[in-house]
């Protein structure tokens, strides 16, 4: 025993030493505990798809790699998909299934490869060997940014080739083709051109793994220009497993080349297709080789083939027929004559990036578009969207003050929308309302009216939309005399005012203000940009003109009017100017030179004018469009005269947006390329929020003031909400040192609503609701693992109301109570009665939450309130409550009576079975009790169509369930019905008492006389306690 004490002493010493060594930091996963995000989609417009892949032998399995939403796997032939890559960066370039272990081994190359202006970045190469449950990063590709090809040897999964397209906005030595022969442990770069030329396509001959084709592409994007093509773009072939490479250009057009798509027909590997971007327009198009690339012949130069090579450069050949091929494009084109002629595919979202054919039936195909995955059952003639891919790519998000609040935002190539933060049955596709077309960006609700502003790319249209009248007016600012032509960003800034509800700002190179919701405009600034002509070129695209307006630069990008002083307005520009006026636009000052450590001309992505001080603001700068991936986040409290860097080493990638808390100045939310970060100490420490929040790019964050919800517009996973972050306001180092700390609970509101939702099929995405339960929040400094732990709700006198499952994580735990007490205990019967599943609602008032943790008890108090919007009076509410309780009691009294009755029958039966002489007295009792019971509860039938006529229990239970579920007082018909049933019960009680006093008394007498132990009946209290 002494030994044990010694051991225990040592153990405590060990534990306490560990305790000393631990520093309490306001960061880490444990800070958030089980605060979990809510992904609400939407999925009805889905988002951009980069890559589609099939399993080589199982047609049920399909993978899709998405632009900003990770990797999704279908196990049902494309009917639905589930995410399998939730812990890593969500921008995907290539998914590859290992043909030697297709059920388990899958490779993912990150970084999307259709290099539009708004692409996210990747973070290397990953591999799973268990079908996607666990992923391992493969070392060596950390700086690859974009992986365009992964080819795996069909007989030896250790041999693989990876094509790195590489950095979009800067030089990179990481570009090229790499080879491993040990499953990814070591790599050799086997093809490299230079630091501007990356791998656009990497293809292995399906029948000869030593034959490889690699198209190398010279390309570069800046914030103001895109260049595709140059002297170094070329198509290479290796016939020796990548040891040597040769250009295969016989028959290729002369001059510079751009992006080249290449595909080998699986059923005839001498047939190679290449779509070539070339210097001369007449040379662009599809080239075919029938001798494995030795020579080429152009077959077609249609628009569908040559359109936007940087965005559409994928050819897919039917696995069974070398003459059937599909080319990505604006609509997608299919040829059935070996590429001589093409027709457009069926109607689906435009901008088609990749396809797969079903491995057994080529009439079935799956297409990846800017608007999700579509499937066809008839060779591409008609297409239908997959309904459960919430990949929507928001550029911006805003919320209003409706109840429930609505979320507004614009999406890449998917217009503008608003939808509710909760909806009966969940947030369904049908809950979302379209309020703009084209590419959608910012959508702002009018502060007081049912009006919103939305826009499309480059402010081609700026709509003022009357939500009540479904009426739209284009109110875009137009060029005026005395000013240059307007330059609007692709993602044009707009802002409203908290001081003047009808005020509406827009930014070109000038700041425009309207005091009448856009009907008229006034310019209140000079050109606030650098107006650098070198960044205002009109010809973007390189070998293929691509003047969409996406590269319009030297524009205003963010506008913020101070919520404290309407004369203080901040403006940030995409070319790095940070401007402020303190007099409503009379005078402007560029304060960017005061920002320490910021490279010149770094894009001002967001300015947040603070509620905590007139001169306080936050600025987020984003240099990724010049290859600078570092985060730049600053705070000023003196109108920009000085700035403090509020980043920490916890942030690894660039950020775009910051949202301050309205109450705690030190609580900040940062939208980064790899997700959401939160600080509770003003930026000294940042923590990555990953609870049901994948590392997708967060483009914009808003904080809803009534609910304290953080609403994130992500560029790949739709809207993600962290409900009610108010608990983070009170996190301090002192709290983190306590064993248990209860946070003040916001009063729970028993919302009086009842309705029906649920119009979606099981293949459609439905976003979860936040619920209306009261949330009890507490911090545990250690995870509770050994010993009992429970959370009781008690009234203020300590009576148990109900018990809830306690959260036991280290960190913040949230336990919700839906205001239900325990349901009544019903009489035993043959079938179910509804009332047994209906719990009565608690009364408004104060309650205690009591945490019992092993031998310790901790408690807090909280309030629950009736719905402030209710039309129900207090007396009515009391009548509902009292009647519910009366009916509870009636049912439990009935349950007890039936229990007593059953026990008597049991005793009589037992006696009869063991003592023949007792038959007379026992059988008479059994007969009378059975006859009575048949009027009290259902004793025959089943729970479906064999149901028996309802008896007293079932009828009492039904009226109880009706009354308990209502908020109003019971109606007169209900009261009449209750009277009818309780009278019947009274009669039954009388009958039962009579039986007890006569037949049962006889039995008892017989038992006593024959020394049979008397029947023992539990008290009502014990009966109700028993489970």
């Amino acid at each position, binding site marked *: 025993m002494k030994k*044990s004490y010694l051991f225990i002493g040592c153990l405590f010493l060990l534990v306490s030493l560990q305790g000393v060594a631990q520093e309490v930091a306001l960061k880490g996963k444990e800070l958030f505990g089980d605060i*979990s995000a809510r992904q609400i989609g939407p999925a009805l417009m889905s988002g951009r798809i980069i890559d589609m892949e099939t399993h080589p032998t199982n047609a049920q399995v399909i993978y899709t790699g998405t632009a900003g939403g990770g990797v999704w796997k279908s196990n049902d032939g494309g009917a639905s998909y589930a995410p399998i890559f939730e812990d890593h960066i969500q921008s995907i370039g290539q998914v590859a299934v290992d043909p030697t272990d297709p059920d388990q081994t899958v490779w993912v190359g990150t970084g999307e490869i259709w290099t539009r202006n708004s692409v996210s970045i990747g973070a290397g190469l990953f591999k799973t060997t268990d079908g996607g*449950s666990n992923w391992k990063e493969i070392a060596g590709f950390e700086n690859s940014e974009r992986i365009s090809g992964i080819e795996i040897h069909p007989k030896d999964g250790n041999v693989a080739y990876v094509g790195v397209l590489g950095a979009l906005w800067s030089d990179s030595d990481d570009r090229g083709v790499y080879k491993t022969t040990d499953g990814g442990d070591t790599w050799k770069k086997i093809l490299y051109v230079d630091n501007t030329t990356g791998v656009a396509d990497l293809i292995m001959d399906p029948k000869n793994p030593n034959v490889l084709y690699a198209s190398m592409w010279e390309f570069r994007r800046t914030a103001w220009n895109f260049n595709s093509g140059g002297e170094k773009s070329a198509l290479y072939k290796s016939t020796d497993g990548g040891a040597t490479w040769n250009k295969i250009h016989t028959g290729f057009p002369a001059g510079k080349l751009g992006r080249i798509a290449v595909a080998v027909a699986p059923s005839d590997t001498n047939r190679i297709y290449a779509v070539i971007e070339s210097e001369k327009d007449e040379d662009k198009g599809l080239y075919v080789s029938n001798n494995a690339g030795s020579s080429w012949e152009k077959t077609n130069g249609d628009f569908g083939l040559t359109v936007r090579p940087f965005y559409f450069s994928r050819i897919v050949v039917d696995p069974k027929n070398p003459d059937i091929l599909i080319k990505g494009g604006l609509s997608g084109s299919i040829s059935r004559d070996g590429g001589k002629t093409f027709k457009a595919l069926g109607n689906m979202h435009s901008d088609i990036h990749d396809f797969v054919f079903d491995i057994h039936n080529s009439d079935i195909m799956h297409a990846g578009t800017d608007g999700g995955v579509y499937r066809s059952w008839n060779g591409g003639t008609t297409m239908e969207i997959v309904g459960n891919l919430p990949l929507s790519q928001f550029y911006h998000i805003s919320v209003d003050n409706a109840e429930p609040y609505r979320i507004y935002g614009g999406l890449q190539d998917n217009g503008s929308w608003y939808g509710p933060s909760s909806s009966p049955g969940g947030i369904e596709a049908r809950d979302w309302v379209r309020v703009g077309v084209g590419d959608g960006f910012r959508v702002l609700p009018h502060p007081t009216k049912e009006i919103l502003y939305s826009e499309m790319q480059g402010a081609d249209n700026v709509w003022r939309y009357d939500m009540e009248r479904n009426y739209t007016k284009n109110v875009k600012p137009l060029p005026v005399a005395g000013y240059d032509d307007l330059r609007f960003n692709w993602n044009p800034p707009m802002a409203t005012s908290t001081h003047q509800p009808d005020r509406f700002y827009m930014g070109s190179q000038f700041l425009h203000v309207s005091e009448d919701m856009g009907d008229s405009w006034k310019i209140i600034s000079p050109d606030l940009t650098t107006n650098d002509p070198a960044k205002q070129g009109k010809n973007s695209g390189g070998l293929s003109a691509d003047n969409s307006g996406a590269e319009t630069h030297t524009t205003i990008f963010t506008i913020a009017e101070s919520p404290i002083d309407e004369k203080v307005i901040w403006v940030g520009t995409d070319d790095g100017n940070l401007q402020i006026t303190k007099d409503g636009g009379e005078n402007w000052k560029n304060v960017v030179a005061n920002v320490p450590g910021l490279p010149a001309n770094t894009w001002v992505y967001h300015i947040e004018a603070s509620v905590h001080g007139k001169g306080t603001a936050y600025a987020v700068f984003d240099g990724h469009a010049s290859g600078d991936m570092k985060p730049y986040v600053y705070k000023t409290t003196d109108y920009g005269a000085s700035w403090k860097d509020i980043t920490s080493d916890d942030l690894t990638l660039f950020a775009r947006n910051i949202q301050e808390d309205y109450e705690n100045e030190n609580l900040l939310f940062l939208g980064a390329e790899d997700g959401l970060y939160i600080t509770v100490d003003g930026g000294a420490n940042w923590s990555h929020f990953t609870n049901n929040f994948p590392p997708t790019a967060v483009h914009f964050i808003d904080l809803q003031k009534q609910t304290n919800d953080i609403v994130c517009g992500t560029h790949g996973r739709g809207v993600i909400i962290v409900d009610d972050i108010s608990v983070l306001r009170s996190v301090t180092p002192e709290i983190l040192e306590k064993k248990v700390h209860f946070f003040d609970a916001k009063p729970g509101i028993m919302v009086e609503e009842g309705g029906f939702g649920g119009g979606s099929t099981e293949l459609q995405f439905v976003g979860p609701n936040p619920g209306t339960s009261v949330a009890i929040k507490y911090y545990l400094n250690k995870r509770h*693992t*050994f*010993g009992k732990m429970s959370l009781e709700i008690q009234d203020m006198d300590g009576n148990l109301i109900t018990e809830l*499952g306690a959260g*036991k994580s*280290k960190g913040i735990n949230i336990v919700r109570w839906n205001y239900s007490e325990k349901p009544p205990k019903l009489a035993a019967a043959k079938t179910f009665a509804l009332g047994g599943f209906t719990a009565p609602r608690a009364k408004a008032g104060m309650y205690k939450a009591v945490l019992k943790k092993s031998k310790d008890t901790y408690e807090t108090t909280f309030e629950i309130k009736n719905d402030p919007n209710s039309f129900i009076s207090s007396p009515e509410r009391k009548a509902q409550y009292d009647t519910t309780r009366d009916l509870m009691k009636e049912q439990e009294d009935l349950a007890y009576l039936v229990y007593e009755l059953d026990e008597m029958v049991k005793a009589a039966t037992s006696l009869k079975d063991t003592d023949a002489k007792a038959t007379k007295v026992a059988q008479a009792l059994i007969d009378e009790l059975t006859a009575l019971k048949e009027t009290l509860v259902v004793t025959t039938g089943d729970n*479906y169509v064999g149901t028996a006529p309802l008896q007293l229990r079932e009828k009492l239970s039904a009226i109880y369930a009706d009354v308990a579920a209502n908020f109003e007082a019971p109606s007169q018909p209900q009261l009449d019905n209750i009277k009818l049933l309780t009278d019947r019960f009274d009669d039954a009680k009388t009958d039962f008492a009579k039986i007890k006093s006569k037949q049962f008394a006889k039995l008892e007498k017989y038992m006593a006389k024959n020394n049979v132990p008397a029947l023992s009946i539990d008290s009502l209290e014990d009966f109700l306690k028993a489970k």
Partner: protein
Amino acid sequence: MKTIKLLVALFIAAIAFPTQAQTAEEIVANYHEATGGEEAWKSIKSMAMTGVAGMGPQEFPFTQIVMADGRMQTSIDLQGQKFVPQAFDGEQMWGTNFQTQKAEAMDAEASAQYKAESKDVIDSFIRYKEKGYSLKKLEDKTVEGTDCFTIKLTKKPIVVDGKEEENFTTFYFDKETFVPVMSESTAKSGPGKGSTAQTVYSDYLEAGDVYYAHNIITKFNGQTGQSIKIEKIEVNTDIDDAIFKMPQQ
């Protein structure tokens, strides 16, 4: 005395296996040591558990009898009626149809799937080698706010919808207490097929000579699904073999 034994076991484990250097086998050995010892686990022939299962706001008292040989019966009491949502007799899964209140056999694939894992009902890791399972240590992870070892337990493949699939579960062992605090597995069928569900373990309490999680919660996408609170566990009591057999109508 049990508590002292546990603390001693924890201490020995902490000394014997510095947390950074542990292999998968050591982590599992540590877990068994910390919860009563491998022999104590192996001596369990049956467990009879009673408790409350919760699904949303609804709660159902339940009884679950599990046998080391894989047989199992779960029953719940609803308004005076006893239902068997699922039972396994060693070969066949069956359960009560809630409409007709009669027992029905589950499909052959469900029975085969259950059978493949049936000897895990008491503990997945006991005799894992004999069962043909393998362990693999993966990257450490923070789970439930606490630092954990990650162990992948690969079982024998099972047939799902006519196709053989690999079958494994990932367990997260708390580095401080050595017991699993969470496991993750992939939904094998239905519309959520391929999605990951979590099972969270807490309230480790004595059950005979071992410590057993008395609170088990399943989660999906951060939302709680089913919650099981075990109130009593009886080990190696007499069990009527008849309860596992599907009643004949």
